[in-house]
């Protein structure tokens, strides 16, 4: 069942037209030693009903947010997705089209991407948004490459409170490019200004900070921005899109490049992908930003329309001198974010941000006051926070919670040895008081 669309008769006719008697002759140039011997060893094909049963059986071996309570955080969150997002983003005209190479046949995609760019620009206050990258981590790594290009400097300073997986991606991307990485101390939960000042120099290409950071804490972004700019470095911010319903946007505190994971904007958790890399910058860096950009113009009849623009930055024209090797964006994910932001609106985004903040503060209050956990960090936080279990056995705690269908974490010891008795707790608008109380009750019993 290979979705072949040719009858035996058509195959014979086509072969006759090209003067061959068998399909095999078309592959004559493939040397015998390169061929599959016999048949590939793949599982037997299944019909639709059998495969449906197979996939549902596999699914039944997973426990998911539809039947468990999720307080999991660390860069992926169980937010509510309005039905209108699924309905519109699953239209085949978006799902089964490709990159809008022919603008006349792709105005739908192009206009949606232009609206995405505009929505992200309005959300962040930044001048320019590209049409998306793979995910928050790779967007952040590309922001560093961009900073190195712009400043012609080869040192970068990363907050230790930046998502560890993002730092790992950055280090992978930079490994062969003769760029030095300095990582700041994380032990106070936020960047320490004295240390930042001592690590920045006139050789620093950029300072990269996450806000709210991996621990959920708010960073002193105004000061950090000032410090970076004082040495002529760029200030790169990893932000949390939902938080911008309440928090100042990156442009307000002087971000030069602002990137984010856009999963919270209408994209399912999906075990970590596909997600949405949001990437924005100041106007003056527009020719250095990687990825696709959609621009407004007019057609020959003078009608407003949209095209891919500034393509000379990209690999298909500039090859090894391109701003990046990125080719596709995450089109459908950007479309989901577009629909989500338009469905929620500015007021709605503020409301959802407030729900997250209130629930997080309520949960933290009760967990520290009633369940015996400590709070290692005192900085203000948004919707996620770190707890310390004085008994020290975090794995046991999280396992016993999971046994009661409550998922909390991740535990922090994997990345931060000094925090091996700590874990993250994240709240979204979906968590009810009852669910939070359940969590508190289970934890109090331990």
């Amino acid at each position: 069942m290979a979705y072949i669309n040719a009858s035996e008769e058509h195959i014979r006719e086509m072969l006759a037209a090209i003067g061959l008697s068998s399909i095999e002759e078309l592959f004559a140039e493939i040397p015998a030693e390169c061929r599959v011997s016999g048949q590939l060893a793949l599982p037997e094909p299944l019909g639709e009903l059998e495969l449906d049963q197979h996939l549902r059986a596999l699914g039944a071996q997973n426990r998911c947010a539809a039947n468990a309570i999720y307080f999991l955080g660390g860069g992926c969150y169980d937010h509510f997705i309005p039905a209108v997002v699924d309905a519109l983003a699953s239209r085949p005209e978006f799902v089964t089209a490709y990159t809008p190479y022919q603008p006349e046949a792709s105005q739908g995609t192009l206009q949606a991407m232009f609206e995405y760019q505009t929505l992200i620009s309005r959300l962040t206050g930044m001048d320019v948004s590209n049409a998306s990258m793979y995910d928050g981590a790779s967007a952040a790594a590309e922001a560093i490459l961009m900073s190195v290009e712009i400043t012609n400097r080869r040192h970068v300073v990363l907050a230790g409170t930046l998502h560890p997986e993002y730092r790992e991606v950055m280090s992978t991307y930079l490994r062969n490019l003769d760029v030095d990485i300095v990582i700041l101390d994380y032990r106070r939960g936020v960047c320490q200004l004295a240390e930042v000042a001592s690590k920045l120099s006139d050789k620093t290409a950029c300072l990269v900070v996450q806000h709210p950071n991996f621990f959920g804490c708010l960073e002193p972004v105004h000061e950090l921005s000032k410090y970076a700019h004082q040495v002529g470095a760029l200030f790169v911010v990893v932000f949390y899109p939902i938080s911008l319903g309440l928090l100042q946007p990156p442009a307000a505190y002087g971000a030069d490049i602002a990137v984010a994971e856009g999963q919270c904007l209408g994209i399912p958790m999906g075990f970590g992908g596909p997600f949405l890399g949001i990437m924005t910058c100041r106007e003056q860096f527009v020719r250095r930003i990687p990825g696709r950009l959609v621009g407004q113009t007019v057609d020959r009849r003078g009608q407003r329309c949209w095209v891919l623009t500034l393509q000379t930055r990209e690999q298909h024209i500039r090859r090894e001198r391109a701003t990046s090797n990125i080719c596709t964006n995450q089109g459908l994910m950007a479309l989901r974010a577009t629909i989500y932001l338009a469905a929620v609106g500015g007021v709605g985004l503020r409301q959802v941000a407030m729900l997250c903040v209130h629930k997080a503060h309520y949960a933290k209050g009760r967990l520290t006051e009633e369940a015996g956990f400590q709070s290692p960090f005192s900085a203000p936080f948004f919707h996620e926070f770190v707890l310390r279990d004085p008994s020290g056995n975090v794995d046991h705690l999280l396992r016993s919670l999971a046994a009661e269908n409550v998922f909390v974490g991740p535990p922090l010891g994997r990345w931060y040895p000094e925090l091996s008795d700590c874990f993250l707790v994240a709240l979204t608008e979906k968590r009810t008081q009852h669910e939070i109380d359940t969590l508190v009750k289970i934890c109090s019993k331990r």
Partner: protein
Amino acid sequence: MHERYGSKTIFELHKPGCQSVRWPACDVPCNEIAELIPEEYLRHEVPSLPEVAEPDLVRHLSILAARNMCVDSHFYPLGSCTMKYNPKRHERWAQLVEFTHLHPYQPEESIQGLLALLYSLQQMLSEIAGLDAVSLHPAAGAQGELTALLMAAAYFRSRGEARRHVLVPDVAHGTNPASAKMAGFEVVQIRSSPAGIADPEILAEHLGPSTAVLMITNPNTLGLFEKEIVRLCQMVHQAGGLVYLDGANMNAICGIAQPGKFGIDMMHFNTHKTFSTPHGSGGPGAGPVAVTAKLAPFLPVPVVVYEDGRYRLDYDRPLSIGRVRSFLGNVGVLIRAYCYLRTVGAAGLKQVAELAVLNANYLLHKVGKLLPVPYGQRCMHEFVASAAKVKAERSISAMDIAKRLLDYGFHAPTVYFPLVVREALMIEPTETENKETLDAFSAAIEAILREPAELLHEAPHHMPVSRPDEVRAAREPILVWRE
């Protein structure tokens, strides 16, 4: 495509107070925000996002949808992109909550079904590649290329070798040289033979102690099988280098040839090409990488492993290049690829290649009578026709033909690539198209070539917009909507 609405932007549909989503009142005791978050962090005004009533939002996106051509409704012979049919069943399965509502940090015991699926996909891709190990991480083909080249760099480093040069044929996709540069290598372009394939003698001129990797696409972007591939691999290995296969064109050979048997060391797959995961207006794709055993220790972490009757994520790989992205890859896309392979099986996969190549050759036969195809009487999954002659004689360009095809209800082929063919039209029909469609497409080209040049210069005539002014867009970029 004949809708005549002036299209508004979402910002022009803004009606204060009309947002689609209403959030519930807070059900926990609330303090004032200012007591929770210091003033200096707070914004004073709400973000200026439009408020749009749900019916307006749905109408708006539906109008936009109607302004796209897509595989479901149109023949989309975009060369090198493999625009094949995207099975509907995959969408249903990939959207099961037991897959979509999973968090990447939930315990392994709670995701055994998903890990079993991903493990099985690793095994199947390894078999199709004829290579030993697979990483599912890369988010797209280009990221797969980068991942493999980073692995090559780590491999040479582990051996104490400082090899600098990545060799890239002149017909390669632009991502190849760009990826090599990002991985810290220098790019050396190698020219193709007069027949349009890589030539061992030309390659020999460029091989040396600094050779790191040869990146080769097979079949190449001209739709030709690189028949010297075994020898090319041997030569690179003798020089101490590695060979990378850009798997963009696997649709031509999957199930028939195994790239591992060419002698290559690493490759990537484009699941959105070969395995029919939707192109999604430009993504998300996925670009899994397959490698030989000697490169396996360098794969990104984590890898899905199966031990003692359970699946787990293996992070303990000291030689790994690390992470190329957060979490574990574009899982939703990988699920669709898994569904595809479980549906077609080994025999089906071979049939895919057979029909893709038959369709391309049949269309080459028909179109070749109308426009010269400079390289080859035969092709694999695609071919490249040239409008250079009609350009010279009648000033009809490849772009004119492409634009006019839209009026005839066909998406245009890829144009002006590869660069070695002047006025290139790169045509890839895929196996899921039928003979009637191919006949209609070549008839359209025939009809177009009979039309007056002036008519074609102004094409398209029946699309929602005519040709956009790209010069204006690039000279004074307008990248956000303003009132």
